[in-house]
Structures are given as structure tokens and as C-alpha cells.
């Protein structure tokens, strides 16, 4: 520039105009994407999951758009951890999706930040029906009188086992069996079959929660942790002993085979997980898998409750009515259940529960399992977790892993967890 040609005013203006136009376009592209044009409303819907869930959800959205031609749904999904990182950034920037998948650990957190839409008004307006939910699920998404999440499918903690390994060891887990029975069983399996009895429960927050519930406590109170350092020391000591004695799988090997599960890789004969996750084992491994009841302390109480993924709306949405209609369709429409199956748990409304009758044994097992615990009367209710619970859960898993690998002592790990939890919960 400079020495040879001069820049005339016209080309200068052109260049300036072009760059302004580019800026404008970029700005438009950054917009929220939810808007209305020509009577059509667009809402953004985000969830966590993998491709198979996305395929099913897209089919249900197609059904919805057919029934509500004036509402368009824009979708977005990531794996669990990435989903929440992105969500937090979007929500803090005032631009969360209009409707999104939610879980119990995030209700209070985002209610405190005024991110969640109170759906009570939409229920009153007749856009969303809270009738026909199974086993008290309608109250699952309530916090301080606000309706913040609508359950889409129920699940409960369970023990997934390799049925053949258990049979060979002569163990038949029954409702009401105790932790002592469970530990004795693991030892039998380990001694007789040279595999670990269990992948190892010490880092699974939801399992420890059940252990605490059996003792009349819980992992979380409304604002804080519901247990002491001494409680956790006992649990992790027991866990670390299990790792050393071999009744739990070698944590290094478990790490190596990720994302495959220890049970489906044949490292162990069982592991605790949500009942609707049990689908993965049959897909991943060769064993004959089934669901066993949660061991109890007193021969009766398992501490279990029906959990659920939920659909929530954004408090900043410009289209609360359409959001409510969307959620209503997704939880009540029988055709949706036929597509989704048990992907997000056993459908939460009776209409959807009756619409999908599983034909494969795994899904039948899940349905039978939830019916069994419901009729046995072991189900309790759960208080929504305090804000910061998600950080506590991640810390619990990570530090338990350090302890089981032996890179941190139990005492040091417990101290570290309580210190991190204090920061996360703001106590």
C-alpha cells in the first residue's frame, strides 16, 4: 500500500461497506436462533447423550413438528460433561436453550441462578398436564413450591450382575439381602473364578448415598453434605481393602478398558449402575446379565428412590407456552414412548408406560425390576441436591479413584473431598 496506486474514495467506501456487512452478518449469526417469523416459532432444545439417543429424539421431534406445524425445534447435544460446561456458559451469557434435559443435581443450582422456568403457570394455563405420572414422579422436579423439571423416564440404582458367575458361586441375590451377604458373595466369586466380584462401588456417589440412606442419613441435605469425615473414612477404607484383596477389580485395568465397562469386559462379575444403563452390557459384553436388588443393612431398607431425567425450560425463553407444549407432548404422547423405549429410563407417565411393551429381555428386566421395588414398598423420596452437587459428585469419583489407585491415602482423600465440597457448596 502507499507507493504505487492510490485508493479512490469509491473503492474505499465499498470496502468499508463490505466489512460492515460482514460484521452485521456475524452478529446476526450469533443471535439466539429462537425467534418467530411468519407465525412460526423456533425453540432450541438441548440434551446430553450419544448418537443413538439423538436419532431417536430427532424422530420424536419430527412427530411433534407434524402435530404443531407452527413450532420448529432446533437441536443440540453433547456428552454429559461437555453438555453442562456448555450449558453453564450459555446460561451465564443469558442465552440458554429454551428447553433442555435436566437432572436432580442441577435443579437447585440453576434455580438459585434464576435460569429455570417455573412451569406451574403453564400447568394452570392448560399447556402442560401433570396427571398420569407413575409412583410420585410428578413431584420429582419440585423445589420450594416451584415446578422446575418434568420427569421423562424413571430409573433406580441397581446391581447389574453376570448371572452365570453368580450361579457358579451359588449366590442368589434376593430383595432384602445384606451387605454382609454381598461381600461374602464377592469373595466366593473371586476365590473360585479368578475374577473380581465387583468393579468397585467406592467412587459411585449414588451407591454411597444408598448406604447412608440405609443408616437414616443421605449424601446431601438441602444445603450441605449429610455425612461426616468418619463416615467416609469407613466407606473408603472398606473399598480400598476390597481393591487390595481383589474382590474389586484392579482400578488400573478398569481405567485401561474405558469407555468399556469392567463387567462387560469380564474383569468383574457385577457393578452398580442405573437400571436403564444395563442395556449397555448386553451390547458390549458376552455374558448373561441381569439386575439384582441393592444390598441392605437391616435386611429390609435399600434406601432406593425413583430418579429421573427431566425436561426443563429456560426462565428467559420468549416462548414459555410452546416450551410447555413441547414438554407435554414428549412426556404424554404414546407414540414418543414407542420410539424412545427405555433410552432415558422407564417412561414416567402411565400412558407412555403402557404404550411401550419391551420385546427384548434386557428391557423386560428393567421393567420387572422397577415394578418389583415399587411393590416391595422400599421406595423413598429424595430431596433435590444443593447447588454445587455436580462438582461434589465429580470430586467424589476422582478422589475415590486416586485412593483406590493408591496415589492418595484414605485420610488424605477424605480431607481433600471435604475441602473441595466445602468450596463447591459454599459452606
Amino acid at each position, binding site marked *: 500500500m502507499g507507493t504505487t496506486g492510490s485508493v479512490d474514495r469509491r473503492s474505499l467506501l465499498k470496502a468499508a461497506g463490505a466489512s460492515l456487512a460482514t460484521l452485521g452478518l456475524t452478529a446476526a449469526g450469533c443471535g439466539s436462533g429462537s425467534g418467530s417469523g411468519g407465525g412460526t416459532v423456533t425453540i432450541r432444545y438441548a440434551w446430553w447423550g450419544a448418537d443413538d439417543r439423538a436419532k431417536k429424539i430427532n424422530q420424536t421431534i419430527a412427530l411433534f413438528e407434524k402435530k404443531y406445524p407452527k413450532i420448529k425445534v432446533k437441536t443440540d447435544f453433547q456428552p454429559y460433561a*461437555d453438555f453442562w460446561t456448555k450449558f453453564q456458559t450459555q*446460561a*451465564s451469557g443469558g442465552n440458554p436453550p429454551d428447553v433442555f434435559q435436566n437432572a436432580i443435581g442441577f435443579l437447585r443450582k440453576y434455580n438459585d441462578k434464576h435460569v429455570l422456568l417455573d412451569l406451574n403457570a403453564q400447568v394452570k394455563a392448560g399447556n402442560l398436564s401433570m396427571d398420569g405420572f407413575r409412583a410420585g414422579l410428578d413431584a420429582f422436579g419440585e423445589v420450594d413450591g416451584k415446578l422446575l423439571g418434568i420427569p421423562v423416564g424413571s430409573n433406580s440404582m441397581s446391581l447389574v450382575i453376570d448371572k452365570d458367575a453368580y450361579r457358579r458361586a451359588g449366590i442368589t441375590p434376593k430383595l432384602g439381602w445384606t451387605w454382609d451377604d454381598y461381600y461374602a458373595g464377592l469373595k466366593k466369586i473371586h476365590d473360585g473364578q479368578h475374577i473380581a466380584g465387583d468393579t468397585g462401588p467406592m467412587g459411585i456417589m449414588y451407591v454411597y448415598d444408598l448406604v447412608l440412606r440405609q443408616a437414616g442419613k443421605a449424601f446431601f441435605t438441602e444445603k450441605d453434605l449429610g455425612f461426616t469425615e468418619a463416615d467416609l473414612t469407613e466407606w473408603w477404607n472398606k473399598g480400598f481393602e476390597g481393591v487390595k484383596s481383589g474382590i474389586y477389580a484392579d482400578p488400573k485395568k478398569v481405567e*485401561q478398558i474405558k469407555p468399556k465397562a469392567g463387567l462387560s469386559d469380564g474383569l468383574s462379575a457385577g457393578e452398580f449402575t442405573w437400571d436403564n444403563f444395563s442395556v449397555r452390557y448386553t451390547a458390549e459384553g458376552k455374558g448373561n446379565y441381569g439386575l439384582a436388588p441393592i444390598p441392605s443393612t437391616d435386611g429390609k431398607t435399600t434406601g432406593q428412590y425413583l430418579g429421573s431425567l427431566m425436561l426443563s425450560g429456560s426462565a428467559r425463553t420468549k416462548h414459555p407456552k410452546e416450551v410447555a407444549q413441547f414438554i407435554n407432548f414428549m412426556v404424554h404422547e404414546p407414540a414418543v414412548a414407542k420410539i424412545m423405549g427405555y433410552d432415558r429410563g422407564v417412561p414416567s407417565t402411565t400412558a407412555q408406560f403402557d404404550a411401550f411393551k419391551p420385546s427384548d429381555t434386557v428391557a423386560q428386566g428393567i421393567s420387572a425390576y422397577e415394578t418389583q421395588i415399587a411393590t416391595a414398598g422400599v421406595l423413598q423420596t429424595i430431596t433435590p441436591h444443593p447447588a454445587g452437587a455436580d462438582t461434589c459428585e*465429580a470430586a467424589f469419583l*476422582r478422589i475415590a479413584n486416586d485412593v483406590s489407585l493408591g*496415589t492418595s491415602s484414605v485420610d488424605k482423600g477424605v480431607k481433600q473431598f471435604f475441602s473441595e465440597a466445602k468450596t463447591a457448596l459454599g459452606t
Partner: protein
Amino acid sequence: MTHIQDAAPERLVKSSGAQDGPGPLAVPAALKRRGRRENLAGLLFLSPWVVGLLLLTAGPMLASLYLAFTDYNLFDTPKWIGLQNFTDMFGDPRWQKSVRVTLQYVVIGTPLKLLLALGVALLLNQNRRGQAFYRAAFYAPSLIGASVSIAIVWRSLFSDDAVVDRAQQLFGMEAGGWISNPDMKIYSLVLLTVWQFGAPMVIFLAGLKQVPNELYEAAEVDGAGTWRRFWNITLPMISPVLFFNLLLETIHSFQVFGSAYILGGQGSSCGPADSVLVYTCYLYDQGFANGRMGFASAMAWLLLITVGLVTAVLFWSQKRWVHYEEGAR
């Protein structure tokens, strides 16, 4: 690299500004107008960059300096807490761990990478057939090395029972995959950076080409051997290039993020046992997963200051070991 890019437009502004100043000779009015018009054009063309610098770099940097002294969770108004983020940091065992991991990575990775780059550059400096091919081949990993896909490939190479593990077994080492081993994982990360030695290698090669042949010939006449020639001629002659490479690679290493994040298995926060929890990984975890943006800002500023200090020390040390030719400095 960014330093160079950032500096260039500034020079542009200055030089075009200088044209405009009152010169010792009277400038014809028409020429003056033209100069001014060109200035305007220059500034206008520059403006997207200036706007970008102010809005996307300088603004957020200043904001983060303020946030470093606050408790800020992304949602509520930042609360001034003075130096507490910094005192919290020093008492946080995970932060300490991240500092240890980062230092391990910088102190082992950077010299190894430079050594390899120099070694290969020396080989490629010889006159052999097909040198151009070898140069391209050795540079190739650096082109793709920083990508996510390579980190994923690396992850599978070092997994249990994968290529590296099998090779170890051939030599009777039953160590298992490095990815799952908290003691070995950092070395797989170090190897990933060492493997990307292409950029410093090319710079070394350019430096080697500058060394006058007469020096070697004279030394040979005096009976100096290969090692002697390298130590007394090559190394001093390329020391400015070595300094440049050392500076660049050290700064780079402190900022490693992508490869550690992928190798760490994303969601699991650079584990197991925080084995590849480099500084920026922990910063990201605290800021974006745990919503402690004030703490993360404090961490970022401490990193900036540390890298600045290390750079200053390197510049100070060059008096002792970097030889500039007369007038070249």
C-alpha cells in the same frame, strides 16, 4: 508467534504516521492530501484488527485482571475478595499438583524436543540425495501434531495391549499401557510434544546453513575433530537460533492444553490420579466446569506473570551463552 503478528501492524501505524508529520521540506498540498487519504485508508483497513484487539483481547484481559481479585461464579455480581484467590491457590493440593505436572512437562519436554530438533537438523544439513524429501517427512508431524485427532491416535497407541505395550513386551517389560498408568502417562504427553519437533528443526536448519564453511575448513586444518568443530563452531554460531527456539518452546510448553485434555479423557479432568493435570487443564476445570471464574482468572494471571519472568530470566542469561556476530545484534 503472536508477538510477531501483534507487533507488525503497530509498526505500520507508526510508519504511516511518520509520513504525515511536518517534514523539513515543504510538501505540495496535493501530495499532502494524498498522504492523508492513504492514512485514512490504512487506518480503515486496520480497524477490524484494532476493534478485535480491543474487544476480544485487551478488554477481556483487563476484565480478567479485575476478576482475579473477586469471587465470581459467572452468574452473580463479582464480589471483591482481595488476594484470597491466590492464597487459596497456594493451599490447594490440586493446584500444587498441576504446577508439578506442568514443570515436569516443561523441564523434560522442551530440552528433549530441542535436542531432537537439533540432531535431526544436523543430519539434514549434510549433502545427501533426497534431502528435500527427508526435510518434508520430518516436518510433517508438526503440521498435524497439534490436532485433536493426533491426540486421540496417541491415546490408542499408548493404551493397554496396544502398539507401545506390545513393543515393551517384546523387550520383556510388562508395564502395561501408559495411558492408564498414573506414573507413566505424563511421559506419553511429553513424547507427543517431542515428536512435533519440526518447527524448531526448520529454524535450526536455517541457522546451520548460515555458518560459513571457511570456519570449518580452518578448524580442520588445525586438526579439530567432529565434536570439537560442533562445540566450538556450530554451537556458538547457532546460539541465537537456539535461544530463539528455547524461548518459543518454553512459552509454548507452559500453555499446553489440547493434547493433555484429550489424552486425559476429557470429562475425567486429566486423570487418572491427575497425572496429566497441566496448569491450563486445571484452570479450565475450575473456570468452566466448576464455575469458579475468579479463581481461574487469578490462575491465568499467575501463569502470565510466571511465563513473563521465565522469559526475562532467559533474556538475562543470553549474555552468557548467546553469541551474536559483530553488528548483527
